[in-house]
């Protein structure tokens, strides 16, 4: 005899889902709408106005900031993804009993504070830090230099902070791939490098792309690292948004900057999906 578990009555479904919908509307949807509304606030009167956007796009400084933001984002991608790929490959194919622990070790930093990891890089790159002390000790530098602030330090710390995201997205793609393909290739006499170049790399492209997108969007929206390690010399959209809201108190302008950042987000996600579709239709 089979007694089916009754389907949820519709009033129960509504009751179950409503608190969640309400929570998201209050803490997510409404703030975004309000942000858009504030960005359109005129200096006087009650109608909507685009003056904050006009100011933003007429000022060449902000074009430079946007360019800088994208440049730092791309730089992070170009360094992070090639570092994440070998680790993901290693974790996906390893037969070692340590595999679980090593996977957890690669992901765990993602759940520790960005502030603390940025602080760690301040210690490493600082005037009396690990790198400077080593270089001076080895006689390469006569005296310590400033490494701990500026674009270089920001990118180094961001790469390290975003690495777990890169590893996790490549890893989840690789574990869906068939390891037998590589084995077949090497059984047929392909050398390691050939297997990598002709089999593994082409098959990994979608995973590498997901990692690139994730690293890029996280890099262009990060605030803590450029703020702490930029030494006031790294101007990206995120730091400008922070300064406009907390120092200049120009909320419509901060709103316009945030919407601009969001627009770049949207453009890159759309671009990514177009490319991914093309890659997948080819293979």
């Amino acid at each position: 005899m089979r007694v089916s578990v009754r389907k949820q009555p519709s009033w129960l479904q509504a009751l179950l889902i409503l608190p969640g919908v309400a929570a998201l509307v209050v803490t997510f949807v409404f703030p975004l709408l309000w942000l858009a509304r504030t960005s359109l606030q005129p200096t006087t009167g009650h109608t909507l106005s685009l003056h904050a956007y006009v100011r933003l796009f007429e000022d060449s400084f902000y074009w430079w900031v946007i360019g800088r933001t994208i440049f730092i984002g791309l730089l992070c991608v170009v360094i992070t993804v090639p570092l994440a790929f070998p680790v993901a490959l290693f974790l996906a194919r390893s037969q070692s009993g340590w595999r679980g622990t090593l996977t957890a070790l690669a992901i765990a930093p993602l759940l520790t504070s960005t502030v603390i990891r940025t602080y760690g890089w301040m210690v490493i790159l600082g005037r009396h830090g690990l790198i400077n002390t080593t270089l001076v000790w080895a006689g390469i530098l006569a005296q310590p230099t400033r490494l701990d602030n500026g674009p270089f330090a920001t990118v180094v710390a961001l790469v390290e902070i975003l690495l777990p995201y890169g590893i996790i997205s490549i890893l989840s793609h690789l574990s869906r791939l068939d390891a037998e393909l590589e084995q077949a290739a090497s059984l047929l006499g392909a050398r390691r490098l050939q297997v990598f170049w002709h089999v593994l790399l082409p098959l990994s492209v979608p995973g590498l792309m997901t990692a690139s997108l994730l690293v890029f969007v996280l890099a262009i929206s990060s605030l803590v690292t450029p703020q702490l390690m930029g030494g006031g010399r790294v101007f990206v959209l995120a730091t400008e948004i922070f300064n406009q809201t907390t120092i200049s108190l120009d909320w419509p302008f901060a709103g316009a900057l945030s919407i601009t950042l969001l627009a770049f987000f949207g453009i890159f996600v759309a671009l990514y999906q177009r490319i991914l579709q093309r890659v997948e239709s080819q293979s």
Partner: protein
Amino acid sequence: MKHDRTVRMAWHLLIGLIYLFLLAPLIIVLIVSFDTRPYLSFPPASFSLISYARVLHNPLFLQAGKTSLLIGGCSAVLSLIVGTSAAFALVRGHFPGRQSLQWFFLSPMLMPHIVLAVGLMMTLQPLGLLDTLTGLILAHISITLPYTTRIVSSGIAQLDRTLEEAARIHGASPWQSFCCVILPALRPHLITGFLIAFLFSFDEAVIALFIAGHRAVTLPLAIYQYIQFRTDPQVASLSVLVVLLSLVPIIIIERLINLRRAVGG
């Protein structure tokens, strides 16, 4: 064969170096935390626990610790209750627009925190909730809800429905079967959902930077404000304590359902 071994060794060396890079800041902070000098320097001049003692007597840090635990705990509990309830409807319900709603519940994951932070600041300000515990808890619900909903959803999808049927055949009421069969079976996912939500709230700094900082100070905020002006071993010791505190939930999650699945790989 010899060539093969060299390649293998080089490969393992490369992996080792990347791991070293990934863990470098945490290792360095741990080493520096034992130093006694008032400024940051490497290597440490001496090894002592004095800065740990200082941290534990620093009222500012202790207050921030309490605030962080309170906010993390409250937002995780609320997010878990709301998320679990929604997950049941999203996985088992049959209603038009279910897929769009599933997508809607995950959408805050894609939102850059800084944009959400500005929006939340503009929303909470007229309500007088800036720089309050309530404001921070509300803000952290939006970033944790996608994770709790998704983790509990995957648990519900894996449930063995014959168990519930068996309970019902033996005369259990729907409520009894929910309490005595479904909830215990979901326990690993519920605990994981709670801990992930707690960790995301506990480590979150960007939103907190925008909507708090004077009266309501969380641990990441306290560290941020401290290192902007001073860098001494005290903040390193505090960082080590915060990381250790995060490590406990991380290990529990790894044991329960594996860290990678919990984070979404």
